[in-house]
């Protein structure tokens, strides 16, 4: 015994609680024991262990160092040091810790398992198997080791032996879900898909209430891309074994794929509580909070994951998404840099860069596109065009997860509807089927509709795309959520075109031949900043379908109120420090004017509070600032009745938001930037004949806002005629756009490489 404290009661009581498995209750007692006798090695070790078991890895490091110092010959502190490093992705330090533990106790089973896990991650499957066999000699009854060994054997191409281990375990009553998952991996490796399915169905028929068998079946269904049926079985498994981590994880990820975020959240929470060291569950939990627009909690959760488990690409990249959505562009840039890898490039091009003033220059975006293209050019899977009898019609594929009530839907539907049918056959590849009036109209125009289940493997998507023998493929999702533009680097059609759908810059995807654009988005000279060739439409680059149930245009509110109300209903991600200070200048010059902001992120209380602090720092008069969270679409449209003039953000300008504002009679003042997303508003305004509402810099933005606000009769007149003007403009002229799109597609087709 080392450094036993005078009053051992707190420590002894803590040990008693630990023996009962009441780790959380033991924690304060251990903390008290360590506070009282800081050199108490065993108390420090137990405190470190308890914190690690509760997922508080960051806080475990201190007492662990004490334990290492005080108990140098004890294997456990060394094992824990290795484990901590392992959880944080530090392989070398992890190995040292495990080996030090084994020097002190050659039968330290957990250290052997840790080394095996490291070996498997490094692709040394045989070494991993040998270590696990050794561990199993010391602890022959341990199901966890048996399953790890089975997994290792699958990796080492020994699925037969893996099955021999998994089968008896699975046959036991109360077998863990993980046994089913491992069994399904082994059976799939040995029997192939058809055999595995048959084996699983037979096993399930014989034992219909075994959670492990059901988990096995669900894992197989997920692997086959039948994720809906897979999710059904995860639900069933969870009802039968609600405390099983593997099953909770399967269910949580299944719900996530279905975008059932609300339902997924509590499942992730339960899974994380049981396995706080499991990174995929921790990051998943953070991302679900983000999808639910609980931004501050999402950021906290991801930061805690970083503190506990250290950094990795995915955790940082997810945090970057959250931060940019909170309007913290610079913080998001730092998180993007920390992430590195492909995620950093995609973020620079798409999710973070276009929002960040310094990252959104033509140069920076072009560079990011080229870097991504280079990275994605590795391992390209060769494309052989499928020969099909030449027909008169060109076969055009649309790849999207957004064909419905979504900006992509509103901005492409009239074009697709009016694409000349006698010349073009339309095949839709839907990555997420939607059920709404817009989605029905897309379905009505499609000659064929091919749906993918959520979570379909990339290879399946590619094979299916290629099987259709397309002439032209248009991507309508980009790198955005649910998009698969990355798959197109392998090429699925002789001509590939990027169009609306996370179209904030060049796609940076190899083999993407064209970007559909217009002369305002990409004037002559912009070519070097795009990895695609520019296919310029004669009017705008997209065509707006106004909603059929929009409220009528309301009279100019300033006439009744006696003061001007500005508004911006764009994402908070677009509201940069420069935007805030520009708006502050306008409000300072017009002491009665007000500004209304309305977006999802402002419905999140902490995000909104932080935003107010920031706004005040930039000199915004908070008493004249009105903040609202998201409202249903029709209410959002009606809310344009409350504002006189829309102030567009920059460098990422409004897209659909501009169209909606104009449709509701509210003109939009925009500052033009260099990137594609910096010019959406310019394109739309030019197409409705209001190019003088687009200005080149912040000073003219302020001056123009003041000038427009000073002439209420002119604003009222413009407002009264704006909807009719927009309706009659090329922005809403589906037949015209459809014809022109047809010509552009024909042009791209003729220009294809022979």
């Amino acid at each position, binding site marked *: 015994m080392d450094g036993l404290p005078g009053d051992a009661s707190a420590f002894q009581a803590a040990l008693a609680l630990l023996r009962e498995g009441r780790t959380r209750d033991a924690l304060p007692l251990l903390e008290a024991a360590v506070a009282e006798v800081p050199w108490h090695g065993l108390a420090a070790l137990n405190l470190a262990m308890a914190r690690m078991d509760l997922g508080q890895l960051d806080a475990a490091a201190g007492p662990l160092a004490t334990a290492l110092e005080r108990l140098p010959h004890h294997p456990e502190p060394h094992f824990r040091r290795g484990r901590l490093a392992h959880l944080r992705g530090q392989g070398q330090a992890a190995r040292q810790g495990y080996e030090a533990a084994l020097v002190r106790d050659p039968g330290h089973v957990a250290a052997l398992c840790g080394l095996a896990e490291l070996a498997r991650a490094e692709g040394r499957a045989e070494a991993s198997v040998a270590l696990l066999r050794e561990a199993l000699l010391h602890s022959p009854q341990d199901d966890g080791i048996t399953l790890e060994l089975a997994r290792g054997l699958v990796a080492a191409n020994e699925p037969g032996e893996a099955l021999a281990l998994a089968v008896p375990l699975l046959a036991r009553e109360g077998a863990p879900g993980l046994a089913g998952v491992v069994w399904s991996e082994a059976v799939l490796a040995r029997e192939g898909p058809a055999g595995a399915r048959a084996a699983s169905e037979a096993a399930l028929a014989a034992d219909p209430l075994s959670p*492990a068998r059901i988990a096995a079946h669900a894992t197989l269904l997920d692997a086959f891309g039948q994720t809906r049926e897979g999710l059904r079985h995860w639900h*069933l498994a969870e009802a039968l074994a609600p405390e099983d981590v593997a099953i909770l994880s399967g269910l949580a990820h299944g719900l996530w794929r279905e975008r059932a975020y609300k339902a997924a959240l509590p499942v992730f929470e339960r899974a994380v509580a049981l396995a706080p060291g499991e990174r995929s569950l921790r990051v998943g939990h953070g991302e679900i909070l983000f999808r639910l627009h609980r931004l501050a909690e999402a950021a906290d959760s991801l930061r805690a994951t970083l503190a506990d488990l250290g950094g990795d690409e995915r955790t940082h990249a997810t945090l970057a998404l959250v931060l940019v959505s909170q309007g913290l562009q610079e913080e998001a840039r730092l998180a993007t840099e920390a992430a590195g890898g492909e995620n950093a490039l995609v973020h620079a091009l798409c999710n973070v860069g276009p929002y960040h003033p310094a990252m959104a220059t033509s140069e920076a975006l072009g560079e990011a596109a080229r870097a991504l293209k280079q990275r994605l050019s590795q391992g390209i899977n060769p494309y052989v065009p499928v020969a099909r009898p030449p027909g008169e019609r060109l076969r055009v594929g649309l790849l999207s997860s957004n064909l419905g009530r979504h900006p992509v839907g509103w901005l492409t539907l009239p074009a697709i509807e009016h694409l000349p049918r006698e010349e073009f056959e339309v095949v839709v590849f839907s990555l997420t089927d939607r059920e709404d009036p817009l989605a029905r109209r897309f379905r009505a125009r499609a000659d064929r509709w091919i749906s993918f289940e959520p979570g379909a493997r990339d290879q399946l998507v590619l094979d299916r795309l290629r099987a259709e023998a397309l002439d032209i493929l248009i991507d309508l999702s980009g790198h955005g959520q649910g998009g698969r533009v990355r798959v197109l680097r392998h090429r699925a059609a002789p001509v590939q075109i990027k169009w609306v759908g996370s179209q904030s810059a060049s796609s940076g995807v190899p083999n993407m031949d064209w970007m559909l654009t217009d002369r305002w988005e990409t004037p002559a000279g912009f070519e070097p900043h795009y990895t695609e060739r520019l296919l310029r439409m004669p009017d705008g680059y997209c065509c707006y379908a106004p909603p*059929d149930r929009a409220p009528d245009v309301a009279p100019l509110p300033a006439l009744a109120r006696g003061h001007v109300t500005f508004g911006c209903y764009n994402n908070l991600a677009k509201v940069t420090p420069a935007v805030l200070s520009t708006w502050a200048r306008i409000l300072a010059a017009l002491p009665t004017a007000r500004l209304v902001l309305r977006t999802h992120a402002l419905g999140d209380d902490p995000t909104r509070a932080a935003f107010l602090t920031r706004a005040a720092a930039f000199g915004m008069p908070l008493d004249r600032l009105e903040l609202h969270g998201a409202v249903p679409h029709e209410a959002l449209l009606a809310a344009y009745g409350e504002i006189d003039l829309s102030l567009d953000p920059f460098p990422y300008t409004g897209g659909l938001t501009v169209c909606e504002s104009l449709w509701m009679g509210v003109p939009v003042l925009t500052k033009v930037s260099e990137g594609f997303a910096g010019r959406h508003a310019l394109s739309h305004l030019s197409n409705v004949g209001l190019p003088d509402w687009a200005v080149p810099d912040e000073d003219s933005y302020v001056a123009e806002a003041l000038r427009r606000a000073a002439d209420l009769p002119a604003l009222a007149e413009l407002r009264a005629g704006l909807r009719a003007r927009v309706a009659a403009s090329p922005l809403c002229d589906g037949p015209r756009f459809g014809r022109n799109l047809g010509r552009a597609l024909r042009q791209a087709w003729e220009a294809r490489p022979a």
Partner: protein
Amino acid sequence: MNIHATPDTTALRLLDRGRDLLRDRRPADAALLLSRAASLPAAPAEAHGLLAEALMESDDAPAALIAADAALSLRDDAALRLLRARIRRALGHADGAMDDAAAAVMATPSDRDAKALLATCLSEAGRHDEAIFLFHQAFVAEPEAPHRSAMLAMAMMRGGRHAAAEELYALAHSMAPYARGILPLRAQNVLLGGDPHKAIALIEGALGRQQGEAALYSVLGQARQRLGQAEAAAEAYAEAARLDPTDTYLQHLAAAMTNAGATPDRASDRYVTDVFDGYANRFEAALFALGYRVPGVMLKLIEGQGYTPGGRHLGDVLDLGCGTGLMGATLHDMLGGRLVGVDLSPRMIEVARAKGIYTELRCAEINEAMAADTAHYDLVLLSDVLCYFGRLDAVLGAVAARLKPGGLVALSIESGEAEGGWELQASARYRHDPGYLRAALERAGLATLEFREETLRWEGEATVPGVIALARLGG
């Protein structure tokens, strides 16, 4: 690790989770959990009842019926009765549905949904006054709910009270201007009431305000057709078919109206199945209401050959396109051998089976059924089925091969002049030239005994001319 759960907690959790999934509109997921709950020993009625609900919402009415029966065998209560009434109605079991709905109303007279379902059943059974009475009660209890006035309107419409229906539809429409479904019904009612112009005005007004939907264009097509504007009708049907590509009936109508290009020489199997499956439970009532007289005339022709009830028997009979068994019921007094029915529609077969007259019923396309058959028959019936075939040689040749020497065939066609002998009509059925029929019978080795040109039925204001004929193999 999995904690061993007692069977009771497992059962309870399966039920809870199943109920949650059902509430979250994931009925297929719920059905998997609830089927496990219902398979446990001593599963409560609730497990079967929830399973029935989940299956019904997953569009598996036959399985839902089994679960509902199981639930009701354990506990007879109003909610389960109401559920089974819905299931039975979906399956076309009109009488059973009405019994269950009535039981639910008697058990809980204040349940408006039960009352509405009973009223729907009554309305569909043609008991319009009772239906209107019940719908009216529901409407008065909840006058601000647009669906209550719409349902009362529907009952009025079915009862032929179009003016009253229009008032109620207009009320429902004003309360829910964007609800899908009310406007097409309202226009349909106006059209049935004899005012195609107003129907068109209603639809075109709506199309100016909202996106098109298949039902609107479908009614527009009917109204245009009524006014003799064939081209405009064709356009409307084509638009309807475009908006709802899954509706094979609309596809067929659109093809029929355009009349252009090569028309298929036989209606697609899917089309025949869809139309009649949707229609099965009201088929006979509709036919009689339309003045359908093929069975009666056929009976006369057959009696003319010396067969009588209680006298000379028909022998073995093959009823091709037997539908709900109308011909079987007409002839059943003079059968004497086997009566084999063939139809493509499983719903039709079910209704025919319920009559208990047929020795055997086969759900098959009739050419395939004949090809698979090795028996020979004394009489083959082709009542109102040749209108789904263009060219007749193959089918008549196959019929001849199934007849005993001297055996009879009784058949009907819709007739009219047709270049090439047959053509597809706007009604989506084929009509045949009488001369073509005579020649086709002869080519098949069938000697004509009777050949009556008859009015088969009325459609709207127009009559449908046809031929009902009797022929004998080998003269």
